[in-house]
């Protein structure tokens, strides 16, 4: 990397895995050169009143490229990520074609190379995410893929999932599951319960998620495979993961921001902005997800950023695709809605997911001399109003339109380069 001007991040309060302290941070040549008081450099980024944190890491991003570039591209998704404080995102494999081979992995990584955020990719567990034949996991692992998932669908066959877990242990990679029993969901479009019954919308019972959580815990016990549970949405799922972690199983879990902020009552508007999979559930489930984040049963906050074009979200509820934007609202929602220490929130958004997807050597590291300068500077008191149209994403499907949130990203540094300055994307 060529010699660049030094930058000092001045006046902020550092929050990282080691604790909190007030200090200036000097960045040179993509790395942290000094941490201390009254430091100076060629250029100053004001961090007065701000938190200086390791860049955020999203373990669950749908970038839509290849295949649905009208909804999102790697570039637009990565720009939204940078604006949201992320320095690393993990692309989900449910593209067209699916990310189920070394060729598509290379394509996505190539597209991400010039993006304003490090783009990593997951790989599919099975060919075409069809659940029938193992995808070439070793070939993808050789290109750096560390997490495999058929996200968007769960691997339905018990036998197939067992084989995938066994195979994964040989590669030292993690399998991530979208837990949903398809047969039990039987064409459902929202949480099955009080609201689905009233609205006349076919439902997806909580048990459809819980049965697969239960099965995969059993298979993790059988195979010893590291398993990551995606977007937990029910109280009993959270309880099962809590018990499994206590029992020493090698499992981790994530919660999305919408599963700790919204309930199925939102669907009464029949607006497909509130359609998502797993679906928005009950207030009790929301409380359980928050409790899981508080006690560590759920260590990760994910976005499940799922862009969809306006046309598709103008379809009737049962015809519209599930999913909502998340990259530009996740941090603020967590800061606004979670009554947790800020260090715990940043951990759930940064160093915890970095560990699970195997990028802990470059992202989520403590802010100390010599470490890569992947940083996010957050004004925790700034209030702002969510506007999907103002987002970097090609799509606008945020369910938080018009909502006032507290906490906003001021600057984001990617390998020392300020990709966001004063809330403005630099490229």
């Amino acid at each position, binding site marked *: 990397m060529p010699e660049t001007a030094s930058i000092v991040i001045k006046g902020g309060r550092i929050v990282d895995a080691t604790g909190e302290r007030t200090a200036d941070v000097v960045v040179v040549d993509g790395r942290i050169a000094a941490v201390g008081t009254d430091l100076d450099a060629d250029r100053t980024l004001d961090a007065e009143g701000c938190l200086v944190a390791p860049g955020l890491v999203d373990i669950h991003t749908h970038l839509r490229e290849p295949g649905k570039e009208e909804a999102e591209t790697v570039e637009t998704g990565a720009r939204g990520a940078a604006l949201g404080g992320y320095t690393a995102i993990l692309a989900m494999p449910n593209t067209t074609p699916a990310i189920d081979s070394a060729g598509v992995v290379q394509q996505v990584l190539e597209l991400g190379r010039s993006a304003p955020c490090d783009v990593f990719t997951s790989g599919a567990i099975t060919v075409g995410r069809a659940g029938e034949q193992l995808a070439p996991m070793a070939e993808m692992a050789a290109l750096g893929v560390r997490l495999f998932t058929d996200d968007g669908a769960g691997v339905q066959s018990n036998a197939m999932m067992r084989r995938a877990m066994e195979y994964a242990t040989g590669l030292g990679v993690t399998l991530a599951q979208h837990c949903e029993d398809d047969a039990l969901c*039987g064409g459902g479009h929202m949480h*099955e*319960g*009080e609201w*689905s*019954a*009233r*609205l*006349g*919308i*076919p*439902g997806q*019972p909580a048990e459809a998620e819980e049965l697969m959580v239960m099965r995969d815990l059993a298979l993790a016990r059988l195979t010893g495979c590291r398993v990551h549970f995606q977007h937990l949405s029910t109280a009993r799922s959270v309880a099962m993961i809590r018990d499994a972690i206590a029992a020493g199983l090698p499992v981790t879990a994530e919660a999305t921001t919408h599963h700790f902020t919204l309930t199925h009552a939102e669907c009464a*508007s*029949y*607006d497909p902005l509130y359609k998502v999979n797993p679906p928005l559930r009950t207030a009790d489930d929301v409380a359980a997800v928050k409790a899981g984040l508080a006690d560590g049963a759920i260590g990760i906050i994910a976005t499940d950023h799922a862009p969809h074009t306006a*046309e598709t979200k*103008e*379809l*009737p*509820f*049962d*015809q519209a695709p599930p999913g909502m934007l998340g990259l530009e609202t996740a941090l603020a929602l967590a800061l606004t809605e979670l009554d947790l220490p800020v260090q715990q929130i940043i951990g759930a958004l940064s160093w915890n997911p970095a560990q699970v997807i195997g990028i802990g050597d470059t992202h989520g590291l403590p802010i100390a001399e010599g470490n890569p300068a992947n940083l996010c500077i957050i004004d925790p008191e700034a209030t702002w109003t969510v506007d999907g149209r103002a987002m970097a994403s090609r799509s606008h499907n945020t369910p938080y339109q018009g909502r006032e949130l507290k906490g906003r990203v001021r600057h984001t540094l990617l390998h020392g380069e300020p990709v966001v300055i004063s809330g403005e994307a630099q490229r």
Partner: protein
Amino acid sequence: MSGSSDPVRHLLDIPDLGGAAGIEDVMRLTDSFVEVSERSIPRVPALRGKTVAWLFYEDSTRTRLSFETAAKRLSADTMNFSVSSSSVKKGESLLDTAKTIEAMGIDAIVVRHASAGAPHRIAGWVDAAVINAGDGWHAHPTQALLDCYTIRQNRGDLRGQHIAIVGDIKHSRVARSDVLAFTAMGAEVTLVAPPTLLPPSLEGWPVKVSHDLDQVLPTVDVVYLLRMQRERMSEALLPSLREYTATFGLTNRRVERLRDDALVMHPGPMNRGVEIAAEVADLPRSVILDQVRNGVAVRMAVLYLLLGSGTGLVPPPSTVPPTEEDPARA
């Protein structure tokens, strides 16, 4: 109009009428339109100059004919946005279709759609009045109103009446709207169905539930049978139609359990021999054709309520002769 305070803009489901007072308004208006329907020239100029469009995404003969007759008797112009042969088939979105129809200067859109909530979405996008003619499993408010009217006509009042709704409640928009309308009017409702044909939750529904039709029949003033659809068999919700008829069908033998003055109702079309025995459908206590007849007057009342001058006075009969045969009388 009297009773309800806010003007009713759309009729998407029963609560839009604002409770018992609003439903009662429709009943009273319907009385006037029943009278109009009995005239030699059953036509009034109440909605002359207004245009009503049909937007039916799902096949419907009965409901559409009923609405069409109602609109014509009010002298409204009507147009049919034929979904099967139109831009919708070419991929036009619900939003674009609704906006297109509105741009033609339409005053009301009558929507039927297989997706629950589609009329709600359209109502949010257009200024025209939207009338829900049935959306998915969700609601069918004009059916519920004509059901209320038919019960009121035969029993004087809904208050205190015990009504059993029997059959596939889970997938029934008629049942959902009927429960809301009947209970708002003070009736007591019991849902009778096997558990597989009940909604997944009845939280907040002011109803009783039974799985034993024989036990319920002697206690009811009205037994309301729902159409049993054959495709429910393939979803493993029932072992067979035969078993359904044996346990939940209103058979010749079972109808004897009803009190002498109890009514039999059905939204149609009937599966004779499945949910209702052929002879039972033709008994004097069966008011199924009254429902159809009242449907026209109720839909006149709804159109007038949403599009009329709001004076509540039905104008005198027009000298314009009727333009078509009245299917409700055929």
